[in-house]
């Protein structure tokens, strides 16, 4: 089945620095989503980006489908960006599988 690997597992930044999060997957994906999860909270969809580059606010996602990888770039990080970022890839049967996430901590 679909395997999803995220890196780094954790990241600590000073406010204002940029973050680069990676997601690698084992099989062709037709759907790829990035989610944000606040500490102890639920998941909120940030971007859906199965291929190419997409921007929303301070977030940029680039997915290279044939290399089976996606990145999420967060520019000018803020303390409120702290939390866990997860990527989800649909499998052959279209049920999304998740990576273990990147825990981001932004210090003031």
């Amino acid at each position, binding site marked *: *089945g679909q395997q999803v690997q995220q890196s780094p597992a954790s990241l600590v930044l000073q406010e204002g620095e940029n973050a680069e999060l990676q997601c690698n997957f084992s099989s062709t994906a037709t*759907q790829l*989503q990035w*989610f944000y999860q606040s500490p102890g*909270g*639920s*998941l*909120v*969809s940030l971007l*859906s980006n199965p291929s190419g580059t997409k921007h929303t606010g301070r977030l940029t996602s680039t997915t290279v489908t044939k290399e089976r990888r996606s990145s999420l770039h967060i520019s000018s990080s803020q303390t409120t960006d702290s939390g866990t970022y*997860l990527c*989800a890839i649909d499998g052959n*049967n*279209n*049920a*999304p*599988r*998740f*990576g*273990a*996430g990147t825990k981001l901590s932004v210090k003031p």
Partner: protein
Amino acid sequence: EAAVTQSPRNKVAVTGGKVTLSCNQTNNHNNMYWYRQDTGHGLRLIHYSYGAGSTEKGDIPDGYKASRPSQENFSLILELATPSQTSVYFCASGDERLFFGHGTKLSVL
């Protein structure tokens, strides 16, 4: 905005007891999913459904049953709860973009 409601928010159960987790969505999505989240494992897929009357096994279905009696409702059933099923359970719906409920924290003692 899609609404996915889970109940209960918190549940304490005894080993060997039956637990039912409920999920309701109001956006007419065909697809619904149950995941559990544990430290170090991310979200793992338990069961999912493509529509009323359908249930499919995910990656970790052992010890769990699912029921989709209607488009809106999708339940996860633990017939004989065990301490290893202590976890946070998330329901999601969506045919492309996923929408999540707030989660159910289950403790099996």
